[in-house]
C-alpha cells in the first residue's frame, strides 16, 4: 500500500481523512502510466481522486505550462471544481495555477490563457474544441500530462461525447504521453465507456477501477390520499404529502421530470406553504443568475427544499441533502440511482428516497424500478456510433488549426471510440462536404472553404472560415428561444418561441414560480408584467420527457403479467389490474395484447407494447399508414410510454396485418420522407455540420436575411441528391435515437404469431390512461390537406369538431390547470395551444 507524500499526508490527516482505496488506485495507475476509468457512486471523493496524481506530480516537479486539462459537461461544475481545488492547493502552499475556461470567460483572460496557460485548466467540450482549432494549439498542449473527464457517463453516447472523443484523439496527437482519466457514475455498460475513453478505441487499454456502492438506498412509495389518478404525469394530487415530507426533513430535493412539472409542483407547494419554508426551484430555462442564486442558497443550507429537473442531476455537491423525492415515474433505473445519490452524499449511509407516482401505470413503474435497484441491475443503452455532423464540425476545426492530410486525419479520428468503425467513404464524404458542400452538381468550385495544395494538404480558404466555425461551434442546437423580460426587473429566463406564438396579450402563464401577464413581443424578448387574470398556462418545452428504458419496460411487463408479483402494489392498482383481467385480459409477458372497441362513433385500437414514447410515436405513424392502405380510415393516435392507441373511422379487423415486421419497410420509407421528426433531425444536423447558421438570440433582426429555413433545404436536397452525406446522417440518427426503430424491430420480431386480439364493446381499464393522455398526433400527409379543407369549410362555424375525450373523461383525470377548471375555457385554450404547427412539406403542396 502506498502512502501519500507530504504535504498531502498532513493535509489529509489534519482533516481526519485517510485516502480512499480508489484514490490510491488512481495514483497507482498514474505511476504505471495507465489510462483509467473510475466508476463510483456520487460522494466518493471521485473528483479529488482524478486530480490527486496531477497535484502530486506538480508538487514534486513544479513547472510552467499546461499539465492537466479537466473537462466537465457543465460550466457550473468546472467553476465549482476550480473553487474546491483552489482551497486545498492554497492551504498546502502548492505552486499550482488553476483556471477555468468556458464560454463565459472574459476575452482578456482567454488571451492570457493562450499565452501563459495555467497548470490545471478546467473546461467544457465546446471550449476545448475551440482551443484545438487555434493555430497555436500544438504549443499550448505539447506538455500535457493528463486529461480528466468528469461525469463521463453523461457525455459518452451523446454528440458532445462524440466531440470530446475527437478532441481527445487530437490531444493524443499533440501530446502522446497524456494519460486519460474518466470519472463516472456506475453504468450498465462499462466496456463501452472504456472504449469511448480509450486512445485506441479498445476497452482493454483503459484500466477499470470500480468502487462498491455503500449501503443500498431505501425507497418509500408515496400515494396521494384519496383517489389514485388514472392519467396525468404531474403528480399534483400528492402535493400535500410532498409538503409534509419536506417539513419533516432537513433539506429535500424534489426531482421532477419536466420543466412544466417543476412550475406546477412548485406553485402547488407554495400554496400549501403556511410555515413559509424556504422552497426554491431550479430548471434549465431559468435565467442563469437565478439558478446560481438557488445553488448558492442551497450550498449554505438556507433552503429547505428545491424543486429541480435534470438540471441538477449532475454535479455540484450539496452535502446536506437528506431526502430526495422523485415525483412522477423514474423512467430508468440508472437515472433514478443518480438522483437518489444526490441525497446523503456519504457513501457509508443509505440514501433515502421517496417515489411519488402520478398515475396507476407509474405506480407499477416505480415498483419495477425499486425492484431493479434491489437486484443491483442498471439500464442504459450502449453508445451509438459517432455523428457525421459532429465529425464535419471537427474536420473544419482541425483545418482551422493547421493544414491537414486526409489520410492522417482519418487515422486520427478512427482512434476515437465513437468513430472506430467509420468507413473511409463516409470520412471522404464528410471532408468533401466541408470542402465544397459535397454536391453531385459541381456548382460551388468558386466558393470552396478548403483547397488542396500540390502535396495533398488541405488548407482553409481564409480567416472567415475560422470566424464561421466559431459562430457555429458546439453540438447543442436549441429550439428557438425568447427571453422572458419582466417590466422594470430584467430577464427571468427563456421560453420556446412556439409557446409565445400561442399567447395573446393579456394571457398569463406560470414561469419561475410567478404568474406573468403577456404584454407584447419585442425582438427576441417577451415583455411581461406580474399578475394577471384567469388560469395561467404553463410553458412546455420540446423533447422534455425521457422515454421509458427498454429494461424497465420489460420489468413493468413482467409485473403486470404475473399476479403473484402484485403484492408490492397498492390496493387501487391491484384492483385496477383485477378489473382488467375480468373485462379483457392482462398483457402477456412476451406476446402482444391488442384491444379494439367502439367509442363515440369511432373505433379504437389499443396495443400494449411497452416500448417507450418515442418508439410508440414511430409505431403509431407506421401502423396508421398500414391502416390507410387497408382502408380502415385511421384518424389519429397517441403514444404513451406504455401503450399505443389509435382511433379510426372503421373497425380495425385484421390486427395481425398491422403489426408485421414489414411495416418497417415500405411504410417506414414513406413516413420518413414526410416526418416532422426527420425534419427536426435534419435541422440539428445541418446546424452542427455548419450548413446553416446557428440562431443567436438577439441577432435575429439583423441576421434575418442570412438565415435559411432548413425545411426548404431538406425538401430540395432530398429530391435532387437523396444520398447526400447529411441526409444519410439524418436517416441514421433518426433510426437510432429519435425513432427507436431498433426497439420496434425487436418488438415486432418478438410478437410475431403471439398477437392476442380482444374485441371489446367498451374501453378496458388499462386503456383508460392512454385515452386521456395529452399530445395526440394526427395522421399526417394527405390528412393535412383534408384537415385544411375541413377547416376552410367550417371556418364560419364554431370549429368544435375536435376530440372530446379530455372532457368526457375529465372526472378521472387530475386537473392540470393550477386553479379551478372551467371546461369551456379549457376547450378554447386547447385549440390555441395545439402544438403541432405544421410546416408545409413541399412535396405535399406540389411546389
Amino acid at each position, binding site marked *: 500500500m502506498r502512502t501519500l507524500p507530504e504535504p498531502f499526508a498532513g493535509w489529509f490527516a489534519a482533516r481526519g481523512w485517510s485516502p480512499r482505496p480508489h484514490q490510491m488506485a488512481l495514483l497507482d495507475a498514474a505511476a504505471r502510466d495507465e489510462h483509467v476509468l473510475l466508476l463510483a457512486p456520487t460522494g466518493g471523493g471521485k473528483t479529488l481522486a482524478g486530480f490527486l496524481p496531477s497535484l502530486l506530480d506538480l508538487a514534486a516537479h513544479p513547472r510552467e505550462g499546461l499539465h492537466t486539462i479537466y473537462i466537465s459537461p457543465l460550466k457550473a461544475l468546472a467553476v465549482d471544481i476550480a473553487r474546491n481545488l483552489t482551497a486545498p492547493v492554497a492551504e498546502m502552499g502548492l505552486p499550482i495555477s488553476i483556471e477555468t475556461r468556458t464560454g463565459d470567460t472574459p476575452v482578456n483572460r482567454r488571451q492570457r490563457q493562450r499565452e501563459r496557460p495555467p497548470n490545471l485548466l478546467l473546461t467544457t467540450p465546446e471550449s476545448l474544441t475551440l482551443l484545438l482549432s487555434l493555430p497555436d494549439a500544438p504549443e499550448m498542449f505539447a506538455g500535457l500530462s493528463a486529461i480528466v473527464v468528469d461525469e463521463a457517463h453523461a457525455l459518452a453516447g451523446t454528440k458532445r461525447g462524440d466531440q470530446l472523443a475527437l478532441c481527445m484523439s487530437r490531444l493524443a496527437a499533440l501530446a502522446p504521453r497524456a494519460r486519460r482519466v474518466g470519472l463516472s457514475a456506475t453504468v450498465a455498460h462499462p466496456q463501452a465507456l472504456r472504449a469511448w475513453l480509450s486512445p485506441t478505441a479498445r476497452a482493454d487499454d483503459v484500466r477499470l477501477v470500480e468502487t462498491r456502492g455503500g449501503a443500498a438506498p431505501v425507497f418509500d412509495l408515496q400515494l396521494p390520499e384519496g383517489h389514485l389518478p388514472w392519467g396525468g404525469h404531474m403528480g399534483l394530487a400528492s402535493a400535500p404529502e410532498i409538503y409534509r415530507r419536506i417539513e419533516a426533513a432537513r433539506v429535500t430535493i424534489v426531482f421532477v421530470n419536466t420543466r412544466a412539472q417543476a412550475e406546477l409542483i412548485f406553485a402547488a407547494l407554495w400554496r400549501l406553504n403556511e410555515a413559509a419554508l424556504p422552497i426554491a426551484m431550479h430548471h434549465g430555462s431559468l435565467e442563469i443568475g437565478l439558478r446560481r442564486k438557488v445553488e448558492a442558497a442551497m450550498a449554505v443550507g438556507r433552503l429547505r427544499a428545491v424543486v429541480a429537473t435534470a438540471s441538477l442531476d449532475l454535479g455540484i455537491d450539496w452535502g446536506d441533502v437528506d431526502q430526495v423525492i422523485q415525483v412522477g415515474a423514474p423512467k430508468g433505473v440508472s437515472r433514478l440511482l443518480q438522483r437518489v445519490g444526490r441525497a446523503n452524499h456519504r457513501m457509508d449511509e443509505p440514501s433515502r428516497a421517496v417515489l411519488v407516482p402520478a398515475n396507476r401505470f407509474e405506480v407499477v413503474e416505480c415498483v419495477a424500478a425499486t425492484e431493479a435497484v434491489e437486484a443491483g441491475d442498471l439500464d442504459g443503452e450502449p453508445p451509438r456510433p459517432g455523428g457525421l455532423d459532429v465529425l464535419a464540425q471537427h474536420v473544419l476545426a482541425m483545418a482551422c488549426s493547421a493544414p491537414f492530410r486526409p489520410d492522417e486525419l482519418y487515422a486520427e479520428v478512427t482512434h476515437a471510440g465513437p468513430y472506430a468503425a467509420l468507413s473511409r467513404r463516409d470520412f471522404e464524404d464528410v471532408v468533401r462536404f466541408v470542402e465544397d458542400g459535397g*454536391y453531385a452538381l459541381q456548382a460551388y468550385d468558386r466558393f470552396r472553404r478548403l483547397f488542396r495544395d500540390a502535396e495533398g494538404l488541405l488548407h482553409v480558404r481564409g480567416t472567415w472560415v475560422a470566424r464561421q466555425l466559431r459562430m457555429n461551434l458546439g453540438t447543442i442546437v436549441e429550439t428557438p428561444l425568447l427571453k422572458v423580460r419582466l417590466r422594470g426587473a430584467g430577464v427571468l429566463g427563456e421560453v420556446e418561441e412556439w409557446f409565445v406564438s400561442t399567447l395573446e396579450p393579456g394571457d398569463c402563464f406560470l414561469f419561475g414560480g410567478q404568474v406573468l401577464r403577456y404584454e407584447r413581443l419585442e425582438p427576441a424578448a417577451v415583455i411581461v408584467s406580474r399578475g394577471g387574470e384567469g388560469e395561467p398556462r404553463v410553458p412546455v418545452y420540446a423533447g422534455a420527457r425521457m422515454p421509458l428504458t427498454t429494461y424497465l419496460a420489460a420489468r413493468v411487463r413482467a409485473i403486470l403479467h404475473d399476479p403473484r408479483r402484485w403484492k408490492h402494489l397498492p390496493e387501487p392498482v391491484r384492483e385496477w389490474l383485477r378489473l382488467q383481467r375480468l373485462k379483457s385480459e392482462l398483457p402477456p409477458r412476451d406476446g402482444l395484447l391488442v384491444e379494439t372497441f367502439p367509442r363515440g362513433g369511432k373505433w379504437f385500437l389499443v396495443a400494449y407494447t411497452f416500448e417507450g414514447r418515442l418508439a410508440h410515436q414511430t409505431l403509431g405513424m407506421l401502423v396508421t399508414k398500414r391502416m390507410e392502405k387497408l382502408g380502415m380510415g385511421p384518424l389519429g393516435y397517441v403514444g404513451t410510454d406504455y401503450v399505443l392507441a389509435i382511433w379510426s373511422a372503421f373497425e380495425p379487423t385484421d390486427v395481425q396485418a398491422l403489426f408485421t415486421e414489414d411495416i418497417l419497410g415500405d411504410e417506414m420509407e414513406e413516413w420518413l420522407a414526410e416526418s416532422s421528426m426527420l425534419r427536426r433531425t435534419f435541422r440539428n444536423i445541418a446546424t452542427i455540420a455548419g450548413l446553416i447558421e446557428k440562431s443567436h438570440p438577439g441577432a435575429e433582426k439583423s441576421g434575418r436575411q442570412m438565415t435559411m429555413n432548413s425545411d426548404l433545404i431538406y425538401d430540395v436536397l432530398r429530391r435532387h441528391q437523396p444520398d447526400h452525406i447529411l441526409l444519410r446522417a439524418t436517416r441514421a440518427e433518426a433510426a437510432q435515437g429519435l425513432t427507436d426503430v431498433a426497439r420496434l424491430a425487436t418488438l415486432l420480431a418478438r410478437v410475431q404469431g403471439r398477437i392476442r386480439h380482444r374485441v371489446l364493446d367498451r374501453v378496458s381499464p388499462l386503456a383508460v390512461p392512454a385515452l386521456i393522455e395529452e399530445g395526440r398526433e394526427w395522421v399526417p400527409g394527405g390528412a393535412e390537406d383534408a384537415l385544411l379543407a375541413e377547416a376552410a369549410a367550417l371556418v364560419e362555424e364554431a370549429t368544435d369538431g375536435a376530440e372530446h375525450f379530455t372532457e368526457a373523461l375529465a372526472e378521472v383525470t387530475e386537473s392540470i390547470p393550477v386553479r379551478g377548471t372551467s371546461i369551456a375555457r379549457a376547450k378554447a385554450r386547447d385549440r390555441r395551444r395545439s402544438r403541432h404547427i405544421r410546416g408545409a412539406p413541399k412535396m405535399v403542396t406540389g411546389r
Partner: protein
Amino acid sequence: MNAAPIHIAGERLMLDPAGVLHWPARRLLCVADLHLEKGSAFAARGRLVPPYDSRETLARLVPLLRRYRPRRVVFLGDSFHDRDGAARLPAQERAMLVQALNGAEAVWVAGNHDPVAPEGLPGQAVEAWAEGPLAFRHIPTPRATGEIAGHLHPKATAPTRAGGVCRPCFVTDARRVLMPAFGAYTGGLDIGDAAIASLFPRGGRSFLLGPERLYSFPLAGRGPVRTGAPDLFAEAP
C-alpha cells in the same frame, strides 16, 4: 388544379394553387419572388447550401408556362436573389428558362434584391408594369387600388382540429393581390405581421396553397395589430 377566380378593379383574375396568378383576358401570367440562385448567393458567403434551388424553382415554373401558354409573363421582382444572380444561373437552367419563355414576352419588374435587368435573358426590365386597370409592382404601396405585388412572402397558419397548418398564401381584398413567394428557398412572413396586416385595414381573404386547390380563410381587419413572433427562417423582405 383548381384556380380560384377573384375580381380586382373589374378584372377577373385566377389564383393558381401553385402560387401564380393568371389573367385570362390578357393571357398574362404573373409570378413573384423566385429568388433564383439564392443557394449560390449563400455559398458565396460561406454557407454551402444545396445548389439545386434554381433547378427546383424552374422545374415547378416551366409546366405552368406550358399549361397557360401566356402571351406575357410578369416576373414580379426578386426574380434573382442578388444583382449578380442572373450571371450565375447555370447554362442548363438558363436554357430551361429561355425555352419555356419562347413565344411569350417576359417583363422583369425590378425587386429590391435584383434592381437591375437580368443579364442575358429575353424580355424587358421595368420598375413597375401597368396593364389595363392593374399595376404590377414588387413592393406593395399603402392604399393602392388594382395592385398586384410581392415582396412580403405571405404565409398563414390555419387552425385545424389537429393544430395549425402553415402554408404560403395569396392575400387579397377588393383592391389588391399580395402574391406568395414562388422560389424553392423562400421562407415566409406571417400574414398577422404588421407589414402585411396594415395593407389590409378592412380585412380580406387569405388563400393557402395546396397541391390541388386553395384553402380560403377570412383575414380580420385591423384591430390591434400584432407583430408576429420573429420568424427565424423568414426571408428578409
